[in-house]
């Protein structure tokens, strides 16, 4: 421990000085205790429980939903065999939504963080507008989109009238609607971290880029974008992780259909309807592990750790 190393390096004669850091570290531990206890209780325990559940076996001669602790790793093989399309679809939708949110969020963040710098009041207002959707429950917002895109709704009506859509076509229930919903939902999560990076961007670097023969686009690619990478990385993580586990947008009750079900929907079905707890738990573990691997690779690749 850092504190230990510090106190052992102190001169042996000054006992009172050695006392200081050690007591400090005890105080620090004491202050951390509630947080550690909270994490242990509400994160570690459920996680272990989930892990144990994922290996359960059905009780012999038991009812539906009755399981015994076991080590049935076949559960994992089974769910991957059964739900591979859903797993792939989850990450596919999440990836597309992340890219779309980045394409929309970055220019928005740039505009607010750089172009609006000279007008602090307008900048503050623009930020409030980005956060404004949070004032309404996102279930309600998604329901509103469902209304808008419904077969009797204005969008379908207009497209029908323009003959851009046939009478049998729908918007809701399609992958496009689900990806749209995900993108819409996570735009603020993408915009805010990028805004934080760009707001602090020293424009003199951009001037220096121009001075050194870089066109505006090249300056953006070689100076602005790398300097805003921390924001881009946190924005994409804040979007991709919850988006891959999302089960509202893809649900049949909202913008999706059975064809668009994602892992979240499958977990929900297994838990609440089929009462196949081990399958649901195994799917959750797979989702978590895959996200962990993907995110780890991504953070490593984008090299944010050696950004200033």
């Amino acid at each position: 421990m850092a504190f230990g190393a510090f106190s052992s390096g102190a001169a042996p004669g000054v006992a009172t000085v050695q006392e200081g850091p050690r007591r400090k570290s005890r105080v620090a531990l004491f202050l951390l205790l509630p947080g550690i206890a909270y994490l242990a209780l509400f994160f570690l325990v459920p996680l272990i429980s989930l892990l144990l559940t994922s290996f359960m076996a059905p009780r012999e001669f038991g009812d539906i939903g009755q399981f015994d602790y076991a080590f049935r790793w076949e559960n994992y093989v089974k769910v991957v065999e059964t739900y591979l399309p859903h797993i792939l679809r989850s990450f596919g939708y999440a990836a597309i939504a992340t890219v779309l949110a980045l394409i929309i969020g970055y220019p928005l963040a740039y505009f607010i963080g750089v172009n609006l710098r000279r007008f602090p009041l307008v900048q503050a207002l623009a930020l409030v507008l980005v956060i404004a959707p949070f004032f309404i429950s996102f279930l309600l917002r998604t329901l509103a989109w469902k209304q808008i895109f419904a077969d009797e709704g204005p969008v379908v009506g207009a497209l029908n009238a323009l003959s851009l859509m046939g009478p049998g076509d729908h918007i809701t229930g399609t992958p496009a609607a689900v990806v749209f919903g995900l993108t819409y939902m996570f735009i603020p999560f993408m915009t805010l971290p990028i805004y934080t990076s760009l707001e602090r961007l020293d424009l003199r670097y951009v001037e220096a880029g121009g001075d050194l023969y870089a066109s505006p686009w090249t300056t953006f690619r070689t100076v602005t974008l790398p300097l805003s990478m921390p924001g881009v990385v946190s924005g994409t993580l804040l979007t991709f992780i919850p988006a891959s586990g999302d089960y509202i947008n893809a649900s049949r009750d909202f913008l999706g259909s059975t064809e668009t079900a994602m892992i979240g929907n499958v977990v929900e079905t297994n838990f609440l309807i089929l009462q196949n707890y081990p399958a649901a738990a195994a799917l959750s573990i797979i989702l978590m592990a895959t996200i962990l691997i993907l995110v780890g690779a991504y953070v490593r690749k984008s090299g944010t750790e050696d950004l200033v």
Partner: protein
Amino acid sequence: MSKNEFGTSGADLELRGVSKRFPGFTAIEELDLTIPAGSFFALLGPSGCGKTTTLRIVAGLEEPTTGRVLIGGKDVTDAKPFQRPVNTVFQSYALFPHMTVIENIAFGLRRRRIEDPLGKAREALRLVELENVAQRRPAQLSGGQQQRVALARAIVNRPALLLLDEPLGALDLKLRRQMQLELKEIQAQVGLTFLHVTHDQEEAMTMADTVAVMNKGRIEQMGAPEELYERPRTAFVANFLGQSNLFGGKVVSSSDESIVVDVHGYRVEVPRARSQRHSGEVAVGVRPEKIELHANEPVPASGINIVGPGRVTDVSFSGVSTSYQVSLPGLGVVTVFAQNRSFGPVVHEGEQVWLSWHVEHGFGLEDEPEQLPKFAADDDTQSIAAQRRRQLQTELEGA
């Protein structure tokens, strides 16, 4: 200059009727300026005089309200910064924090697709004697090292025109002197046109071939450093470049050689060629180091101005020289610098002295005597505080 090769020499810079107005104030008024290729030109002035705006207009970072900018005879007024054969060493250095030193220097070369950017960058790094830090990040360098990297990053592109925006401001005195010499050496080696913006008169005089003193958006006087120093035309120049003793008075007689001014009863003669006005009320001056102190009244002689007696009110010793403040009835306080060629001060506080100087050392100014500004002296409490703060800042940066 084509995209992927170096310019072979510096280019002329010409500003034609350039002005710049910001909402509420005018930064530059009608500036006409020609800087010949290969010269080291300094724009000198206090902060807010428009010198940095001028530089930014040349770099293309600011658009002039009126006027044209020509580099090497080509009108670049409408060209974007990246299209101009110009590089800038920024006051803040603006080194890219996410790139290594060598990548910073190679940046411009890569953009212009010049062959072997890393090799040329390494060469430039050798020129500023920093080969050993090539792989470091700018944040890991000291202020002086960053400054040299910024210089290398600009010079490596062999721009027709190199702009220096007070790049030495953040360095401590010793390092600044060293960098001044190095800069001058580099300029002689590469033969580029240097436009250097600074508020440090000593820096401008030691480095530049030509100095233009700017004040309130206009160039007050332009010329070789010696000329500006020895023959200032305005009170502003006389006081911004070194110190001056200025007196106002009426011309009482004049000849082909000189004019004689009556300054509160003292007869002060100034060569006609060295004065801007030859009749009526005029302002004349003399540099403090040109004045001699006498303990006894000197014998009047032709070609020598004598004033006195006065009383020494302050003696301050500064190593090489000693500065005396002499209070003369009617004239006010006159500053005298004397070289410390023997030990200690020649006269002491409270003693009575006479002052004399050679007629050919005096100069006459354009300004009306009653308009002689109340000079912002270097030794008021505000500027001492500002100096102290700057010193502390550089110390902090060095630590």
